């Protein structure tokens, strides 16, 4: 079902045009990469604050209040350009191991941010000025740093076709992880 839909999506004229365009695709990709500096960059600065190793004299609320809007702008740019990149080659990305790991970790990063928002951040007034935030906040910062590191690395590696389904033979775990339709199935 999903494969059929993505196959259809990848054959729509705009998808083909985007993939084959000389400048639009590279510009979308470049925007996606440069927005990392804004989105992941500001996220990392806040995470380092939460972990307690940077900006120790700056209240955490300054980050969540004043810097977070910029993080959100970065996220919107990343999401829009990322969806466009996906739209240019939906089936290939769907069967790409790195893309799959990236999406899973992306979801994990989102859940982590949500838990922090609902938990430690609600009581931030009690600890926002502390150089060393409470354990829950430090954990949220550390998980976020690890998650975004994995997202950036796997995101970059999507470009490589080492584990693509059309490059058989692949080890069984690759075919499983990439959801390749192999002859044995």
């Amino acid at each position, binding site marked *: 079902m999903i494969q059929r839909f993505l196959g259809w999506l990848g054959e729509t004229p705009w998808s083909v045009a985007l993939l084959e365009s000389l400048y639009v695709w590279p510009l979308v990709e470049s925007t996606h990469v440069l927005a990392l500096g804004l989105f992941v960059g500001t996220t990392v600065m806040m995470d380092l604050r939460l972990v307690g190793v940077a900006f120790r004299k700056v209240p955490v609320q*300054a980050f969540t209040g004043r810097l977070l809007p910029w993080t959100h702008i970065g996220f919107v740019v990343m999401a829009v350009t990322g969806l466009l990149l996906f739209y240019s080659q939906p089936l290939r990305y769907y069967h790409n191991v790195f893309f799959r790991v990236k999406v899973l970790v992306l979801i994990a990063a989102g859940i982590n941010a949500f838990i922090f928002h609902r938990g430690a951040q609600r009581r931030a007034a009690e600890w926002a000025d502390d150089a060393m935030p409470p354990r829950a906040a430090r954990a949220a910062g550390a998980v976020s740093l690890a998650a975004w590191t994995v997202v950036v690395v796997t995101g970059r590696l999507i470009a*490589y076709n080492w584990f693509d389904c059309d490059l058989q033979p692949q080890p069984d775990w690759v075919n499983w992880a990439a959801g390749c339709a192999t002859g044995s199935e």
Partner: protein
Amino acid sequence: MLEPFFRWCESTLIGRAVAESVWAFPILEAIHLLGLCMLGGALLVVDLRLLGAGLTGQPVAQLARNARRWLITALVIMVATGIPLFLSEAIKAYYNTSFWVKMTTLPIALLFTFLVRERVAREEGRDPGVRGKIVGAVSLALWFTVAAAGRWIGFS
């Protein structure tokens, strides 16, 4: 004129090792990108503040002092991965306009950051004036050019 030097770069042990390895270039690239993230964050915290946005309410000098070591860490990561990436495809880089744009802008950005911006940020208090705003904008423009040209090396 510099072409023989670039040929030599590509023939170095590191250059050949990276070029011949399947994983080395992509992994170095990925770490280079992680450095970019940290660089972007460390720059933006201060530049946005100089422009009167972001962490307003915090003294510029303090933010700049705090961000400095992350800025330097990021630059070390980027240079340490950027050099082997360059060595592995030095001849391609030699004929690549984006590479030259990046390498011309990079020293300017570095000098501006550590000679001009750092001094200005140290003197600014809670209310950066026109000078601070200009410095923040120039810093962002310079580093944006470095990053954009860097990404474009792979496309041209």
